[in-house]
Every structure is written in C-alpha cells, then in structure tokens.
C-alpha cells in the first residue's frame, strides 16, 4: 500500500509496510495515482505490482501533457523502488502476532492513581474531578502503592525498564506517598535488576520549589497540564469554586520549567470545539517560554467535544501548526510537538507498532483501593476490573481481549496508511464511542492521520532545507 499526498508543496509517498518515505515530483505522483486506482479496482496487486511501462506511459501521456521522456524515466524509477522493496512492499507482519502476544505476557508500565481527588474541577475531566465515576475521593496509602510496585516487579519478567506514572486526580495532593514510593522503588532496583522510570502528571496547582526539586531529581518525565491562552484555559480548567486557574499555575509552571532545564517534560493542553484555533494556544505556550508541547483533542460526546463538522478546521489548524513548527526550526527557535516527533530511522520496531499501547497487557492502572484496570481511562467502569494488588490478575478474559486486538482485527485499519503509527488507536476511545475495542473512534482517526501526514511533511521540508544549507 502506498499513501500519496501533497502538503505544503511537497509530494509525498508513504510506503506503508516498509515505512519508507519518498518525496517525488508531479510526474511520479501522477503515475502513482493511476497505479493506486488500478489497485483499488483490483486490476493490479497491492504488493510488488508488475508495472507495464508501455501501458502506463500510454495512459499517463493520454491523460496529461507530460513529456514521454520524463514519464518513462519516472516509471523506471518507480519500478526500481518496487524491485528494491521500497515501494508497494508486502505486509509480512500478520504471522508475527504470536510473537507480539508473547511479548505482552509481562507487565512493564503502571499508571498509579495516587490520588482520586483533585484541587481543580476541569469541566472536561474524564476522571470527573478525580472521582472516576465513584463519588469516592480518596488517596492511595503507601502500603497499597508498595504492593503495586511489588506487583509490577514480580510480573515484569526480564524487562529492566519499568514505568510508573503518578496520576490522579492530582498526584501532588498525595505528595508524601509519592516520595515514599519513589524511595521504596529506588531501594529495590538493584536487588531486582530493574530501573524505575517514574513520571508524574500534574495540574501544577501545588508546585513549589521543594516539590520541583524532587521532581527534577526523580522523575524521568513530568507532564504539566495547561490549555494555552488565559480565556481558553479558564473556560475549562477551573477551581472547585469555578475560578480560572491560569494566573495561579502559569508562574509555577514557568519557574518549574526553567529549573527543569533539558530534562524531559511536556506542557500538555487539551483542545475542545471551543478552541479549534489551537495553534494560538501553542503560540501562547511559546510566548510563556515553553518548548516541549503537546495539545490533545478532548474525547467526549459532550457539547464541547469534537464533531465531524469540525474536522476541516482542525485539519487546517494542524497544517498551520506544522508551518509554525518548521518556521521556528529554521529560525533556530525550535519547539517539540508530541505528535510531530516521528523518527523515520530510529523509531519503534514493527513488533511495537503491531502491539499498540499495551493497555491491559503490558500497561495497567491501579486505583487507591488497589484495584487493577486495563488502563487509566477505564478506571471507575467496574466491569473492567481485572484484579487487585493483593491477589494479582483475577480476570484474564479482559487482558486476552486487549491482547488479541490489533490493526489486523479492526476492519477500519486494514486500508489505513497510518496503522503503524497509531497501532489501531486507543482502545478506551473505541470502547467509549462504540462499546467495542475492535472498532475505531473515527474522528480520532482522522485527526491522527492528519498529524502523521504533517509529521512526515515536516521531515521532507527540513531535509530539503538541510540540503540547501
């Protein structure tokens, strides 16, 4: 399968099964369009098609005013790439699924719900103010957290790197236990031959120098939530009394980011249909001195949720963001945007790309009560409890369902060019919108596809600039 598209003046071919990206001229783009049409109509094989030069040159020449010499040359190059397994390559991955499933038999990542309570009441919060549908505000005890870490170590097989994200609610509301658990984790690393990578996701309300110093020492990554412009942030991210949080959190985040230096962190915003012009929120982040950025579409059916009719504007906005991304790189003032960070040569192996996020298999969430869920997004939906930290995994049916879901079990993924970038998408989104983890959240898919197209275009644009320098 070859995905051909034009963006910002670049004609791009993504050979889906090899992941190879080719930047081409109009002549090649034109010929690929004809080949793709024939594949779609079943006249040509989708992998390693036999291209009849004389037939295709005649057809292309009859439909365009291209020169014969150019068309023949382009056809020859296309055939050469097909011969080199660089275009229209075969999907050889499905037989690898048993290997993927075997890999997923160990747990390596945990979302630790250290606090089911929050000091903000963000209107779009999927955790419902930290209560997760339970109307039960609670903090995790050290004992429960310790059992969770022990459970992770015991179930992680030979994996060395273990990830633990302190999540909530607001994890800093239970900071003492965070500190105790980090100390406990560090104390067993050597003996167990593990490396804990602790991370923390916070709304920054309680951030201060003491906490900041600890986070900078112990956390491999810190995610700080803020939505961008004051009016955008304050519409959704409010205190329990209904007051906007921007003025309270901005100075704290600025100070923390400055102290954090080069260590990993993300400024993470959420956009809703109230701020579809979210590039302005990215610009706000940049103006505030933030450079490691992520902005995610809200996932909800509420009135501020993204609708199909919003997609054209969102597509334009991602293009605008991509232009800003390129411009700032060229000006020597780069920033990172989570979804544009595709490394075409050193990215994840195909086994990882087949296995998706690993929820319910490699990745689990643990609540303050010690219940185990497939991931943080299912917490509070009790039918998804798969075990607890005292007894371990008690329900294997749910993990098996997650393990067996892949780009090959989802109809919509079959012909999608982005399948090896999103790995079939977020199972929680699928469940929330379709009550079936083998379906997809189509609005999310459209946005994901656009982000992948933009990320690849950025590579093409930057490669061209490097060449000219």
């Amino acid at each position, binding site marked *: 399968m070859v995905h051909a598209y034009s963006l910002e003046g670049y004609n791009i071919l993504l050979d889906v*099964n*090899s992941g*190879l*990206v*080719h*930047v*081409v*001229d109009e002549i*090649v783009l034109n010929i690929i369009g004809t080949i793709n049409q024939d594949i779609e109509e079943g006249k040509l094989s989708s992998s390693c098609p036999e291209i009849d030069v004389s037939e295709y040159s005649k057809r292309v020449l009859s439909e365009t005013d291209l020169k014969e010499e*150019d068309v023949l*040359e*382009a056809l020859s*190059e296309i055939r*050469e790439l097909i011969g080199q397994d*660089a275009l229209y390559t075969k999907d*050889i*991955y499905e037989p690898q699924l048993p290997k*993927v499933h075997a*890999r997923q038999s160990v747990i*390596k990542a945990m*979302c630790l719900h250290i606090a089911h309570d929050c000091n903000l009441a963000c209107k779009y919060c*999927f955790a419902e103010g930290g209560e997760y549908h339970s109307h039960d505000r609670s903090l995790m005890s050290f004992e429960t957290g310790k059992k969770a870490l022990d459970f992770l170590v015991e179930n992680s097989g030979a*994996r*060395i*790197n273990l*990830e633990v994200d302190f999540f909530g609610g607001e994890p800093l509301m239970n900071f003492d236990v965070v500190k105790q658990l980090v100390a406990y984790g560090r104390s067993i690393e050597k003996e167990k031959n593990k490396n804990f990578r602790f*991370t923390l996701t916070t709304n920054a309300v309680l951030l201060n120098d003491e906490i900041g110093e600890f986070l900078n020492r112990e956390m491999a990554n810190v995610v700080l939530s803020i939505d961008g412009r004051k009016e955008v942030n304050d519409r959704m991210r409010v205190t329990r009394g209904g007051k906007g949080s921007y003025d309270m959190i901005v100075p704290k985040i600025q100070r923390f980011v400055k102290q954090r230096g080069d260590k990993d962190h*993300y400024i*993470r915003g959420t956009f809703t249909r109230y701020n579809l012009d979210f590039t302005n929120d990215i610009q706000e982040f940049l103006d505030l001195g933030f450079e490691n950025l992520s902005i*995610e579409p809200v996932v909800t059916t509420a009135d501020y949720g993204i609708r199909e009719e919003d997609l054209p504007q969102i597509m334009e906005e991602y293009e605008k963001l991509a232009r800003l991304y390129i411009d700032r790189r060229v000006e020597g003032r780069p920033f990172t945007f*989570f979804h*544009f*960070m595709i*490394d*075409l040569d*050193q*990215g*994840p*192996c*195909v*086994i*990882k*790309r087949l296995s*998706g*996020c*690993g*929820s319910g298999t*490699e*990745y689990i969430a643990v609540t303050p009560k010690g219940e185990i869920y497939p*991931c*943080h*997004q299912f917490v509070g939906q009790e039918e998804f409890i798969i075990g607890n930290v005292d007894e371990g995994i008690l329900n294997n049916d749910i993990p098996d369902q997650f393990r067996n879901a892949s780009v090959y079990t989802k109809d919509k993924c079959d012909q999608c060019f982005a399948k*090896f*970038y*999103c790995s079939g998408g*977020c*199972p929680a989104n699928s469940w929330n919108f379709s009550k079936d983890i083998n379906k997809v959240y189509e609005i*999310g898919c459209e946005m994901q596809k656009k982000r992948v197209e933009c990320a690849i275009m950025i590579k*093409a644009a930057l*490669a061209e600039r490097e060449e000219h320098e």
Partner: protein
Amino acid sequence: MKHIKTLNKKSLQSTLKKGGCGECQTSCQSACKTSCTVGNQKCENKK
C-alpha cells in the same frame, strides 16, 4: 534518482529480526494519555 528522493533508509521489515524487546516506553505514559501514538516513540533496544 531524478524524480524520487527517499527520506529514510531503515525499513520496518528490517526491525522484525531484533524487534520486540519491549524496553521502550509505553506510548500512553509519555504525554497524551488520551490517544495512541506509537510511531513517535524511541527504540531502546540495546542488543
């Protein structure tokens, strides 16, 4: 080539052989928490 410029060299097929060590970051732990982007993760296979 005159009409085609290839941006990357490493094909996904070539990652099959040594792939699957599982030491890389879980995608949802990095920043998103609400979507699934795997393509932007780093490979951490040290073998």
